[in-house]
């Protein structure tokens, strides 16, 4: 399942929901991404996430399909916020449920890595020196490249 929304979310409720009533689930892995107060040397006062409505949902759905093809998941959730967020605010949640922990961990990390390089989100950081668009990081491309199959 995918969700793109401006509102905050409740990781505990999502984690509980994904395993509720399904006793084939042995492990639920999850990741919550939060707005940090620092980017390099700069202090961040706020961050605005711009996205491409329509394409975002398509891209996330494609990433979810890919994960479900690669791992035996009982269920999976990608939830991403957009709009203006403050340090400490939640940005993204990925939850994966599987019979075994290896699949849950691998799929969760895969989803985060691919999300970072394939979902059409752009970050505008507000600092004392003004607002600036965050540049793409080679590190994220490398993390995503780990999952490319020959």
């Amino acid at each position, binding site marked *: 399942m995918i969700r793109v929304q401006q509102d905050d979310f409740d990781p505990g409720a999502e984690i509980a929901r994904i395993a509720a009533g399904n006793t084939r689930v042995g492990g639920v892995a999850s990741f919550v991404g939060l707005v940090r107060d620092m980017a390099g040397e700069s202090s961040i006062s706020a961050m605005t996430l711009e996205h491409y409505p329509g394409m975002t949902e398509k891209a996330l759905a494609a990433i979810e399909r890919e994960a479900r093809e690669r791992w035996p998941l009982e269920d999976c959730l990608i939830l991403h916020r957009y709009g203006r967020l403050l340090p400490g605010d939640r940005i993204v949640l990925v939850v994966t449920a599987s019979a075994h922990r290896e699949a849950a961990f691998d799929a969760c990390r895969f989803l985060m890595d691919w999300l970072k390089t394939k979902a059409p*989100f*752009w970050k505008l950081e507000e600092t004392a020196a003004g607002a600036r668009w*965050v540049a793409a990081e080679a590190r994220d491309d490398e993390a995503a490249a780990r999952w490319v199959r020959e």
Partner: protein
Amino acid sequence: MRLLYFAWVRTRIGLAEEEVSPPSHVTTLGELVAWLGTRGPGHAAAFANHSALRFAVNQEYVGLDGKISPGDEIAVFPPVTGGRT
């Protein structure tokens, strides 16, 4: 043909979207971007460096050699930034 701009492409051009009718010899994204660059100084600045841009045609990533048609929704934006986490 509907064009959408995001992030600094949007702020540099000063438009989030626009409707354009390029001449009929413009059939690829690369040709479209070259043509768009002539529409004004904001466009010229935004489209100066192709390698800093990514494109989607009808919400799918496409390279500069991708074909375009009059009814397409075409988006131009920087590489996505899942960010620093």
